[in-house]
């Protein structure tokens, strides 16, 4: 898969309450959750996002709650990928289960600035920064995560096992 979009950069230790505050957890609707994505950081944050844009985060993105509503909100806002320095454990697993691609790149994330145009080749893990010409390569996914992502998430993956 290839993705192309504008980088929306956020800081370190962005928690799941910032991604989707508790008051919105009375629904599982991805559109409604998407409209309120990152509203714990800044109201109306999601309004600046175009479908296909890419979230770029600092250290420990997604820390806190186990709420799967967090990756659903990011997908619901139109963002198929999060590039991060590192990710919190539960959020990492949830994202792949929901079909949201996470790319863990460590300090290399500093080569991306807010607003940069990015092009991603998910198969090779190459992130091309079209604005400043930098290139980052994300280490390959563990085989088990890649398998789940290939199926489009855990639901489809388990479906095959049950059938």
């Amino acid at each position, binding site marked *: 898969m290839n993705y192309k979009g504008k980088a929306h950069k956020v800081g370190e230790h962005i928690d799941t309450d910032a991604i989707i505050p*508790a008051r919105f957890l009375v629904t*599982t609707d991805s559109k409604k959750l998407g409209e309120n994505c990152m509203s714990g950081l800044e109201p109306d944050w999601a309004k600046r996002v175009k479908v296909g844009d890419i979230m770029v985060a600092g250290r*420990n993105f997604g820390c806190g709650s*186990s709420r799967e509503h967090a990756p659903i909100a990011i997908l619901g806002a139109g963002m198929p990928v999060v590039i991060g320095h590192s990710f919190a*454990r539960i959020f990492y697993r949830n994202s792949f289960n929901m079909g949201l691609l996470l790319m863990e790149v460590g300090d290399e994330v500093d080569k991306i600035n807010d607003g940069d145009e990015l092009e991603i080749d998910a198969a090779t893990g190459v992130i091309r920064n079209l604005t400043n010409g930098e290139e980052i390569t994300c280490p390959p996914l563990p085989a088990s995560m890649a398998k789940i992502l290939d199926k489009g998430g855990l639901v489809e993956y388990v479906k095959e096992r049950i059938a």
Partner: protein
Amino acid sequence: MAQTLAQKILQAHTDEAVEQDGQIVQCRVSMVLANDITGPLAIKSFYGMGAKKVFDRNKIALVMDHFTPQKDIDSANQVLISRKFAQEQGIVHYYGGGDCGVEHTLLPEQGLVGPGDLVIGADSHTCTYGGIGAFATGMGSTDIAAGMALGETWLKVPPTIRVNIRGNMPKWLRGKDLMLMLIGAIGVDGALYKALEFGGPVVDDLSVEGRLSMANMAIEAGGKVGLFAVDAKTRAYCAEHKRPGVLENMAADPGAHYDRVVEIDVTGKEPVVACPHIPSNVKPVSEVRNTAVQQVVIGSCTNGRISDMRDAAEILRGRKVDKNVRCIVLPSTPTVWKQCLKEGLIETFMEAGCIVGPCTCGPCLGGHMGILGDGERAVATTNRNFRGRMGSLNSEVYLASPLVAAATAVTGFVAGPDQL
């Protein structure tokens, strides 16, 4: 191979040889948990997977504790989904009415989790059960759906950080202070993807409730689990709580490999608070003592047990809550509530001017029953102080033990019990 506690418990739940950290193993689960927020998503995924029957109707717990009693139509409708599922599947451990309490206090209390168990829950604080020697970890709803369908899950064997706590435990220090000190020392991602294993003389002397409260916040250091060895205290706790038959002590093998060892000496330490907006921003109470607060919350899965209620009552007895503070006390299960009533603690709280409420997670996550307005500040015995966690984006939450929270309620400023 000498095994850590985490490796040992995983080994008991898998047919594969647990040989190294980072290895992915398929494990049988002892209990699968979801609540009113995460349950509906899990149920949607469960049916989406084509599953028809849960793997074992005795090994699933559905606890409607977050927005309970339901705060609006949407939250009530979410409970309907879980209740209907429980009825259809014949789920034995469904809690939604007067039997319902905060899940992580309720499950150990009801003997539904125990030493050596492998528990997965769609709630990040599922790690609480490490306090009684269970490998318990939080996951998202879809992982939980797969667990409900298959009775198993995949887990990466975590590297372990050993935490040794020693020294003379000061009178006003509690498990909460020890855990906040650790998070302050290693940071909110200090145990990312790892297990925390606690030991040392202070931990040996600590009550089981104190251990549960520490294990509860392992996730605030990024940890996968927070584990305590099983000893005579654990066995006594389990025997008292409908879980008899735990006969063996259980600890890490001598010579087990640790990723890192952290030493903490508590001698001469004063109680601490985690200042906004991150749980690692930990300071001694005396450094922030002039900070005015408008709300105090005593309860939650971290500190809503009977020992917490007794601590709060000890401070509040014969004293009054400051006029500018709303002090909310939420015993975390019906059993805790009844015990408070029996011991006269409810009367103590009421006499002091507290609001005594139902067994709910409400205020901890800014759900309901204690939301902060613009510019308001709270001291809470809960586990997270993220920006906007308890309400307005312009509010602040300080985390502390029930002793500190109660003392703060009396003075109206962040205070330790020795300042009264």
